């Protein structure tokens, strides 16, 4: 659905996007994750044909962003970061205007507006559609912005920080909405908050310093965080050194380090990648009659990974590109 190859964008002497390549399949919810000024917004602006790329190519919904810009625009719904709307217009008025711009035939406009409003919970309370946008709260504005991009039922939705400035309840509602959209649309959204992207997206692209630092499903990324599998066990029954030695003898165990916690021995066991040693450890413990208080596979925190990769990037390129906003 979206195919990006070596996309590069220079703002004068500053390189905001540096040879970014990725691929998005139909029906995926892709999260662009990165610190502020990483190049997320710029990438989105290029994909939606607002800005041209300095180098590289991309196709969206099968159309080239440079050569077939109008066709790309017809198939993309883009919600910019600040959700710009005409404050003096009423909600329905704005949506009708947008659907006219979106080539929706005159007779179908009302239905399209109602459908988009319904999906974004704008139909209730009744009077929202008649309210002036300037008077709406941030959460409602965000919904109007989203309704706006849903009007023409685009194949691809590009949402720049869709939950920015929402309260927790609204964030949850927005996440559910975005997830429900994936049935018909391919969604690409950006955020600088990991939890946000993890909760909504099934595919993550971590961008820092204009480059892709890591990409994959959150499972795949986690795998990379943990690296070799790591197991924590708390045991007692024999001397710590003996227990550590016996565990070290289990196949696929790389390293064991022991520490004392009261009467219990705390063992940090590193195994080969993609192995789960918990069953073997339990078996050994039961054979030897050890007491087992805890046995858990360490799941690496993506947060740490995110901070780590983005930090590496910022160390490598100390002059972070300015925010594109």
């Amino acid at each position: 659905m979206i195919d990006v190859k070596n996309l590069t964008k220079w703002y004068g002497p500053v390189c905001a996007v540096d040879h970014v390549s990725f691929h998005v399949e139909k029906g995926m919810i892709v999260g662009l994750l990165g610190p502020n000024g990483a190049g997320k917004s710029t990438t989105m602006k290029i994909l939606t044909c607002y800005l041209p790329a300095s180098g590289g190519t991309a196709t969206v919904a099968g159309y080239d962003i440079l050569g077939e810009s109008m066709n790309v625009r017809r198939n993309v719904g883009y919600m910019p970061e600040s959700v710009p709307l005409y404050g003096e217009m009423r909600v329905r008025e704005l949506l009708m205007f947008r659907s006219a711009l979106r080539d929706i035939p005159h007779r179908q406009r009302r239905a399209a507006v109602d459908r988009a409003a319904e999906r974004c919970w704008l139909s209730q309370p009744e009077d929202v559609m008649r309210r002036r946008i300037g008077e709406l709260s941030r959460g409602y504005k965000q919904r109007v912005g989203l309704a706006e991009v849903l009007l023409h039922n685009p194949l691809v939705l590009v949402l720049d920080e869709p939950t920015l400035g929402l309260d927790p309840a609204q964030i949850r509602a927005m996440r559910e909405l975005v997830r429900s959209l994936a049935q018909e649309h391919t969604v690409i959204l950006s955020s600088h908050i990991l939890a946000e992207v993890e909760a909504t997206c099934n595919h993550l692209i971590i961008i820092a310093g204009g480059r892709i630092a890591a990409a994959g499903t959150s499972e795949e990324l986690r795998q990379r965080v943990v690296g070799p599998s790591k197991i924590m066990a708390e045991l007692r029954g024999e001397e710590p050194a003996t227990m550590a030695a016996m565990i070290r003898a289990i196949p696929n165990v790389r390293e064991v380090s022991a520490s004392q916690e009261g009467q219990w021995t705390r063992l940090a066991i590193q195994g080969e990648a993609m192995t789960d040693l918990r069953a073997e450890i339990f078996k050994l413990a039961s054979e030897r009659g050890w007491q087992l208080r805890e046995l858990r596979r360490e799941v690496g925190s993506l947060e740490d990974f995110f901070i780590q990769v983005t930090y590496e990037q910022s160390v490598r390129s100390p002059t972070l590109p300015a925010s594109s906003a």
Partner: protein
Amino acid sequence: MRKVLVLARRELAGYFFSPMAYVVAALFFAAGGLWFFYKVFIPGNEASLRPLFEAMAYVMVFAAPLLTMRLLSDEYRSGTIETLMTSPVSDAAVVLGKFLAVMVFYLILLAGSGAYLALVAIYGQPDLGVATMGYLGMVLLGAAFLSVGLFASSLTSHQLVAAIVGTAILAVLAILMQLLVAHGAEPWNYLAARLNAMTYFSDFSRGVLDTRGVVFFLSVAALFLFFSVKAVESRRWR
């Protein structure tokens, strides 16, 4: 073309919500009204709106940029330009839609001045041919001046800057050129005479249909609309 109308309709509706449009309308009518009652509507005077048209033309040097300053600057400032430019609409359609909207608003203002013509017609016999030419001149001058203002608005996200730049360009066309004609040295005064918007306009206000004036105003309008489209496009290569 249909999208130009869609855009123009929204923009025109926007005028009726913006206080600036009413302020400009008030300025336009106050200046026109004062001039009308001091210079035109005097017993024994010639039943002609000519002095009024000349005054309104000068008022437009300041009024046109005030009317147009919002058009693109506000889109840049609020970021709505992004949603606009990522819709299937060409840059030219956006510029034309805005121009059409401000033109219609200006025509409404101009229609308001019909009251003066009516007053003159009640108390005298104005030459309707001359009045028609005067209005035609006002429409052409408006098209040229408003497109200059639109161009100024396409350059910046600050409305005030847009208004000042627009007024400056118009002042060159309408006032500086006149001074150059009067006081300029040999080659310059001839050149200035060709670029002097007010000379062309005074032909119209005298009731003369001079194609040079028609061509001048229409080409200024076309040129600055073209510049505006290029300025809007410039985000792509800036």
